[in-house]
């Protein structure tokens, strides 16, 4: 009965959520596209696991931060496209501010140490 999720702390999960929301700011995308985009943008530093990505997408959809529609991809296959909702946009704004605070705080500590 135990379903273990990939080891991802609360902070990591929140970060993935934030990255997904940020990626979708450009416009609707399917799951594969989101994973590829994050990997490319981070120059392969961040590798998005399927086992984490899809649960994150579905959880965001269930929370109403994302909406999903079925459409046709570039290679003319049926694909599920996600887009930001108004609530998602608001969440992204909040996440952005919080991320700014945390990253400068961590950077400050790492510099002084």
């Amino acid at each position, binding site marked *: 009965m135990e379903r273990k999720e990939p080891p991802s702390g609360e902070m990591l999960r929140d970060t993935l959520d934030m990255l997904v929301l940020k990626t979708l700011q450009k416009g609707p995308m399917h799951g594969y596209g989101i994973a590829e985009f994050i990997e490319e943008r981070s120059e392969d530093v961040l590798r998005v696991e399927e086992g984490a990505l*899809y649960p994150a997408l579905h959880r965001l959809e269930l929370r*109403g931060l994302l909406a999903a529609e079925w459409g046709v991809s570039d290679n003319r296959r049926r694909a599920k496209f996600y887009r930001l909702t108004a*609530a998602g946009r608001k969440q992204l704004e909040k996440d952005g501010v919080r991320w700014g605070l945390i990253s400068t705080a961590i950077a400050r500590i790492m510099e002084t140490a």
Partner: protein
Amino acid sequence: MKITESLTDLWLRIKSLALRRKLHHDLEDELDFHLAMRRQKFERAGMPPSEAAAAARRRFGNPTLRHENLRSLWTFAWLDSLARDLRYACRSMARAPLFMVVAVATLAFGIGANTAIFSIVNGILLRAMPYDKPADLYFIREGLQHGAERHIFSAVNSGNVLEWTRRARSFQSIAMMMPSNDTIVMGSGSANVHGLRASASLFPLLGIHPRIGRSFTPEEDQMGHGLEILLTDALWRERFAANPEIVGRRVSLNGFPTTVVGVLPPSFYFPKQDQIYDTSTSHWSSPVEYFLNLNLGAWERKPGVGNANFAAIGRVLPGVPRQQALAELETIEAAIGRQETDEYSLHAELVPLRAAIVGPAESRIWTLMAGAGLVLIIVCVNLAGLMIGRNAARSREVAIRLALGAGRWTVLRQFAAEGLVLAAAGGAIGVAGAFLGVRFLVRYAPISLPRLESVTVDGRVLAFSAAVALAAGLLCSVLPALRAKDRGIEETLRSTAASLTSSRRTAFVHRLLASSEIALCTVLLICALLLGQSLSRVWGPPHKR
């Protein structure tokens, strides 16, 4: 999680529940698409197709697990397992039809009895009187005191009521009424009908408005303004064919021409004629079918001691305590009394409306409820006994399931599911029976209870029955299962592998079961007799006081 997020979540899950197959396909398509895209990318990078497919799958991980993980996000996991448990319970019940019939019938009896009795408790005791702010309403009674001995009349002097109305500041209004049995003649037919002469203040005091026409005016309280009649909905339908043009028509009441001024709404309830007094008399035990204007003669307007023929209801002003209202009446009463006699003193009493109407029956109804509860407990204990017997026969099955790795919680849940299936079936049959029984009870009124008309199987009764059924189902299934749990798996497997009868321990358990069954049946019998006795007391004529 915010409230809007919770709502979105719930809505999407319910939608996916309704579209289970669509959810399955969507998840599959989405993951397939991802896999295909990844494979394409590898192929474009120069991998041979077979290797690309394998590499994509390797990176993707176990697709079934991924699928299940996502599915669990969208569905209520407990709902799935509950459905599974219930299905299994139904199958295992179907394998033991005799046991099932006995268990369902017993539960139906217990739950049905409790539903019926609770609908009486609900209708008569729990539901508020159908008047505006009923807690502020009191019956006013008069009494005479001689030395230490006080005698309460069942009625009041009409002149004194006028005196209270004039002088008492604690009351918003006071109404009086008096039974009147008449022969009504309309057209060619005639009938004996039962009603009340009532003051104009009665209907505003209760917060009741006629469905057609009007109620009485204060002038019509005095003699000389003619006779006016206000019909109840029942009389209007029965004797006047629900004629909507009835207002203004003349009927003959005991030979006197009487004008119909209005018809009361169907929901209007009023106690029977004798319930407005402190005593019950067979002469005035009829339901009230109409109201007549008070038509008070000059001799009835004089205050005094005695001549008590009327009943009075007062509505105290909001927030005025009963003691204060009573003290004020007592002052007025003392003054009236002093003018006539020094030997006795005149007094008043205030009885809350609800207490006056349902009070005499209250303890008897609670006795009934307690009796029904007792029957239910015995039903459960008996059923638990049957379950223990059944479980003993199934201990091998349980032991095997435990040995194969089923959690104890899973097995316990399985037993609970069986109990719930039994209780649901028993509850449905019991409630249906109670529904018919209550209809019969109200229609033919074989028992004398106040407010019997308001007894129905309503939402509250159904909720009560559901709770009772749930409790009964869990009680008779989980308790025996808990008891059965503490025998070791290995021992059970070994002892049941040998012949059942040869095991001394099993034989002992069987003897124990048989004797406890007999003991329980004795208790059941005694309780049933006691219940029957209290039933006959409720069914019988009301106590004289």
